[in-house]
C-alpha cells in the first residue's frame, strides 16, 4: 500500500514533466527533426569509422597470429647449447610455441618451395642452409617494440647466427593501426563536440520559442529544476532517437555492402570475417547518443544561466 502511494506520488510529480516534454516536442517538430538528423549524421559517421576500424583490427589480428621470428643457428652449435637455447625460448612470455628445423628439414622445405626449380640444389657439394628455431608469438603480448626487443635479446644468445622477422611491414602495420585508432578518438571528440553544440543550439532555440511559457511557469511557482527537466528529457529523446536511427542505418548499409562485396569477390575469405558490432559496442553507441543529448542540455542551461 505504501509502495502504491509512493508510486502515485512519483507519477504525480513526473506526469507534468513528461507532459511538458511531449508539448515541447510536439509543438516544435521541425527543430526536433533537424536536431535528430544532425545527431544521426554525426553518429553515423562515427559508427562507420569505428565499424571500419574494428573490422580492420580484426583482420590484422588474424594476420598477427602468423607472427614469427626465425632464429638461425650457428653451424658449430653443440647439443648442450642447443638444449639450453630451446629452454630459453620456452620460458619467453611472448613465445607461444616453437619448432626446431634441422638443416636437412630446411633443405627439404626449400625444395618444396622451389618445386620444379629445385634441381639446381642437386649440384651443390654441401647443404648450405642453417638449422633454425621458428618462434610463434603470442598476439596479445606482442607489439612492434616487443618483437624488436625479443629479436635483439635472441641475437645476443650464444649459438645464434642471425634473427629474422618481418620488421618493416610489421612496423608499418602497427603504426597504421595506431594512427587509425588515435585519429578515431580525435574524430570522435570532434564529432561529439559538434553534436553537443547542435543539441544545445536546438534546445536553446526551443527555450527561446517558449520563453513566454517559461515565464509563466516561473510565475506560478515552478522550480528551476521543474522548468529545466523537460529540456533534459528532450535532449535524451533527441540523442536516443538519433542513436537508434544511426545504428539502424549503419546496420542496413553494412549488410548491403557485405552482400555487394560477396557478389563481386565470391571466394575472398576476408568478406566472411567482416562483422557488425557486438552487443557491448552497440550499447555504448546508444548510451553515447543519450549522453550527447544530456551534454547538449547541460550546455544550453549554462547559456540560460548566462542570460
Amino acid at each position, binding site marked *: 500500500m505504501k509502495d502504491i502511494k509512493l508510486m502515485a506520488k512519483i507519477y504525480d510529480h513526473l506526469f*507534468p514533466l513528461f507532459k511538458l516534454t511531449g508539448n515541447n516536442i510536439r509543438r516544435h517538430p521541425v527543430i526536433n527533426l533537424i536536431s535528430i538528423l544532425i545527431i544521426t549524421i554525426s553518429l553515423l559517421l562515427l559508427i562507420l569509422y569505428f565499424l571500419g576500424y574494428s573490422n580492420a583490427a580484426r583482420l590484422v589480428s588474424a594476420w598477427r597470429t602468423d607472427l614469427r621470428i626465425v632464429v638461425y643457428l650457428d653451424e658449430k652449435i653443440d647439443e648442450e647449447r642447443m638444449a639450453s637455447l630451446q629452454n630459453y625460448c620456452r620460458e619467453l612470455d611472448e613465445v607461444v610455441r616453437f619448432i626446431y628445423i634441422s638443416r636437412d628439414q630446411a633443405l627439404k622445405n626449400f625444395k618444396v618451395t622451389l618445386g620444379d626449380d629445385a634441381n639446381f640444389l642437386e649440384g651443390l657439394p654441401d647443404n648450405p642452409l642453417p638449422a633454425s628455431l621458428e618462434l610463434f608469438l603470442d598476439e596479445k603480448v606482442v607489439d612492434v617494440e616487443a618483437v624488436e626487443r625479443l629479436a635483439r635479446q635472441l641475437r645476443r644468445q650464444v649459438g645464434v647466427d642471425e634473427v629474422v622477422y618481418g620488421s618493416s611491414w610489421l612496423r608499418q602495420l602497427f603504426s597504421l593501426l595506431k594512427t587509425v585508432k588515435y585519429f578515431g578518438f580525435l574524430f570522435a571528440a570532434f564529432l561529439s563536440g559538434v553534436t553537443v553544440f547542435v543539441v544545445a543550439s536546438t534546445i536553446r532555440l526551443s527555450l527561446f520559442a517558449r520563453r513566454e511559457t517559461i*515565464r509563466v511557469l516561473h*510565475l506560478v511557482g515552478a522550480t528551476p529544476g521543474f522548468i529545466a527537466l523537460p529540456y533534459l528529457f528532450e535532449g535524451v529523446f533527441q540523442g536516443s532517437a538519433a542513436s537508434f536511427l544511426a545504428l539502424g542505418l549503419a546496420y542496413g548499409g553494412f549488410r548491403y555492402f557485405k552482400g555487394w562485396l560477396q557478389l563481386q569477390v565470391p571466394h575472398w575469405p576476408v568478406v566472411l570475417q567482416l562483422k557488425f558490432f557486438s552487443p557491448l559496442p552497440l550499447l555504448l553507441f546508444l548510451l553515447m547518443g543519450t549522453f550527447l543529448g544530456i551534454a547538449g542540455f547541460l550546455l544550453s542551461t549554462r547559456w540560460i544561466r548566462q542570460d
Partner: protein
Amino acid sequence: MIRVSHLNKSYNHPDLILKDISFEVKRGEFVYLVGPSGAGKTTLFRLLFADLKPDSGQVVVDGLDLMQARPARIAKLRRRMGMVFQDYKLIPNYTVFDNVALALEVAGTPRKLIQKAVWQVLKVVGIERQLERLPPQLSGGEQQRVAIARALVNDPQIILADEPTGNLDYEITEEIMNIFKYINSQGATVVMVTHNRALLQRFKRKVFYLDKGSLQTYVWPD
C-alpha cells in the same frame, strides 16, 4: 502578511523609481496600490513576488525575506500566492483547463485532485464551459477570468493583482471585482494595483498612493 521596509529601486537610473518605501499589509486585508502612470506601481508589484531585486531594503512575505531566499523557496512561496496580470500571462497553446491546472501541476498535486479543483475554480469565475478552448479563442474578460482562476486554484493566502480590470468594460469589471471581494471574504489577503479611481470609490478599501517614488496611505473614513 507583507512587510516592505525602506525599499529603493532605480533600474541604474539617477532618479529613483521607488524611494525609501515602507508599508505593511495585514493578513486578510484588501489594499489598493494606486498612482499615475510611471509612478512605479508595477515595479513595486513585481518586487512583492521577487520578480525584481531592489537596490536596497527588505520585502518579507508570509515570513520569507525575499532578498535572502533561494530560488526554490521563492518558487514554493509563489505556489501559496495567486498572481493576476493585466496581460493575463496565459499560455496561448494550452487549453483553459491546462492553463489553470499548471499552477497545481508545478506543486505536484495528484491528478485526480487537479481535475476536481480546476473544475470548481472555473465554476467560481463562471467559465467552466470553456474548458477545452484556447486563450486566443476567448474574449479579454474571459481570459482575465482564466487568469484569476489560475491564481485561485491553489487556494492562496495572498492574491497580487496588477490592473486586473485594466482592459475590461464596466460590467465585466464589476464581475471581476466581485470575485476578488469574495476571495477576500474567504480570508485571502489581496493587493490590487490599479489606476482606476472610480473603482476605489465603488469598492472602498485601504489605498497606498504611489507618486514620484514615494508612498502615502489613505484609509476611507467609516
